[in-house]
């Protein structure tokens, strides 16, 4: 590993830089959204824009995605898509089993709701209260069913030379 030659090409480097810039912009947008949400939370009646910047400066901590273990919008430790509600899902849905049981399943909102009801009736899952619709929206959005038909084609084939 003492070789100093870059492993990735200049094209890849350029692409990487583009992605990086894009993600930085996305972060800004995300921070923006957080600001708006936080603002609305604290000032449901609305407020004049003059104070919005102050709110941004004082209320929103700087988020470092890598320290949070977030790569490409995925929280690496749990595999959850990082989007509104994901932290509620992490908090409520990884207490008994690992997140893998959640992320490998697919269902529409009603399907997720029926799984939650089953866990509440038989597996000691608690009442999710006002978080339930947020959790359901999140699950239905990111872990929605995909059509497979009666039989899907073979995928993920790892081709290899058959030995004689």
């Amino acid at each position, binding site marked *: 590993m003492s070789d100093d030659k870059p492993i990735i090409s200049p094209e890849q480097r350029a692409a990487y830089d583009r992605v990086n810039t894009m993600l930085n912009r996305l972060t800004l947008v995300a921070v923006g959204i957080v600001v708006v949400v936080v603002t609305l939370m604290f000032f449901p009646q609305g407020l004049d824009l003059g104070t919005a910047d102050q709110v941004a400066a004082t209320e929103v901590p700087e988020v470092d995605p890598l320290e949070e273990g977030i790569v490409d919008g995925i929280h690496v430790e749990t595999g959850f898509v990082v989007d509104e509600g994901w932290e509620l899902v992490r908090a409520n849905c990884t207490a008994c089993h690992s997140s893998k049981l959640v992320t490998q*399943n697919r269902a529409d909102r009603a399907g997720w709701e029926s799984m939650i009801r089953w866990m509440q009736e038989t597996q*000691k899952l608690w009442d999710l209260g006002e978080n339930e619709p947020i959790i359901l929206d999140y699950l239905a959005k990111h872990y929605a*069913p995909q059509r497979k038909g009666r*039989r899907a084609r073979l995928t993920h084939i*790892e081709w290899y030379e058959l030995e004689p």
Partner: protein
Amino acid sequence: MKEKKTVNIHRLYAEDPIEADRLLFGRESDPVSRRGFLRRTGLSAMAAVLGGPIVFAEHMPGGLLPALLLQDGNEEALKKLGKHTGLTILNDKPWNIETPAHLLDDEVTPADRMFLRNNGLMPTSIDPATWTLTIDGEAVTKPVSFTLAELKQKFTHHSYRLVLECGGNGRAEFDPPAKGNQWTVGAVQCAEWTGVRLKDVLNAVGVKSNAVYIGYYGGDTHLSGDPDKVVISRGVPMAKALEDETLLAFAMNGKDIPLAHGHPLRLVVGGWPASASGKWLKRIAIRDRVHDGPKMTGDSYRVPCKPVEPGEKVPDEGMCIIESMPVKSVITSPKSGAILDKGRTLELRGHAWAGDLSVKRMEVSIDFGASWQAADLKPAHNRLAWQRWTANVKFPETGYYEVWARATDSSGRSQPMVVPGWNPKGYLNNATHRIAVRVR
């Protein structure tokens, strides 16, 4: 096979994370802030390992093993469980691990290649010297407890190779998707179990004429941590319980049963959903009704009694308990993805099984089921063991092929080529196994 050099990356990071960064990736972070990469090489090397660029690299603290690499932890976890590192972890709490088809090639499945389905947390400390099995319930003359030593002493030992297949094997293929661990093909195994016959033990205990069903209780703990909550308690009707092959097993493949598979005692019921084979067995209730323990009711291990449209709501009274598993087969050699030269004969090998029945015919197809060629099929080592099959196929032209394998049971039922009847939890998918082959 090429030699693969392996480093224990986790140990390196545990011992000296900064040094580990340097050794593995040539990465040096700013000595003061310990952040960022002083040399770009470190970043690109790390990116190459991770298979993509690292975003926000400048914020990355030194000595932080990128979380993606932690997935290598899978390998460590598999080793700790005594599993082959080629197995696939579907869930790590509770453990649900499946075996790729090509690792099921052995006639008798070794412990390290055996799929694992836990419903709760495994017992942590087990003392075989004090372990007891209690037989009770409405239909015994009087409850009786046996120590392991007593069971081994009092009753004749028997060994059988028994197919245990998860009821949900193949669940991943259902549309609309079915709930639970998304098993593909490898939640099946055929090991050799040694123990005493349940029927011998029940004879000694004394079972009343009103006996209908047995229900087991094991030593695992519910995921919620509640010590009083039963994780799973399933069973079978008396007729199945009293078969010769239904064992109270204390050994698997000639050794103590591994902890994950039920040490020190397991009820083993071949040919039925593997969930009927209770692990860490502590108690068997002889019931005067169909057993109603957790996972005997609702959608668990039950399917619509009459066929339903995919996705249809099925009322509780319309659900029936799964009994014998259906006819099925698997291609264990070659592994899917083989490339071979035109003119070469491809040798195929696999296993076939049929729940309570036997397999009477085995066929393979290289043209998507348009024509079938008979395979050579061996008889089972004993009732409820799987049967070895082999076939040689030749390909007429270069190109992409799929080899499909289809078994037919002794009653004349064959495996379907598409996914069979939908059910809410995605049980009983016995569609033909397929592998991809390229001829050049």
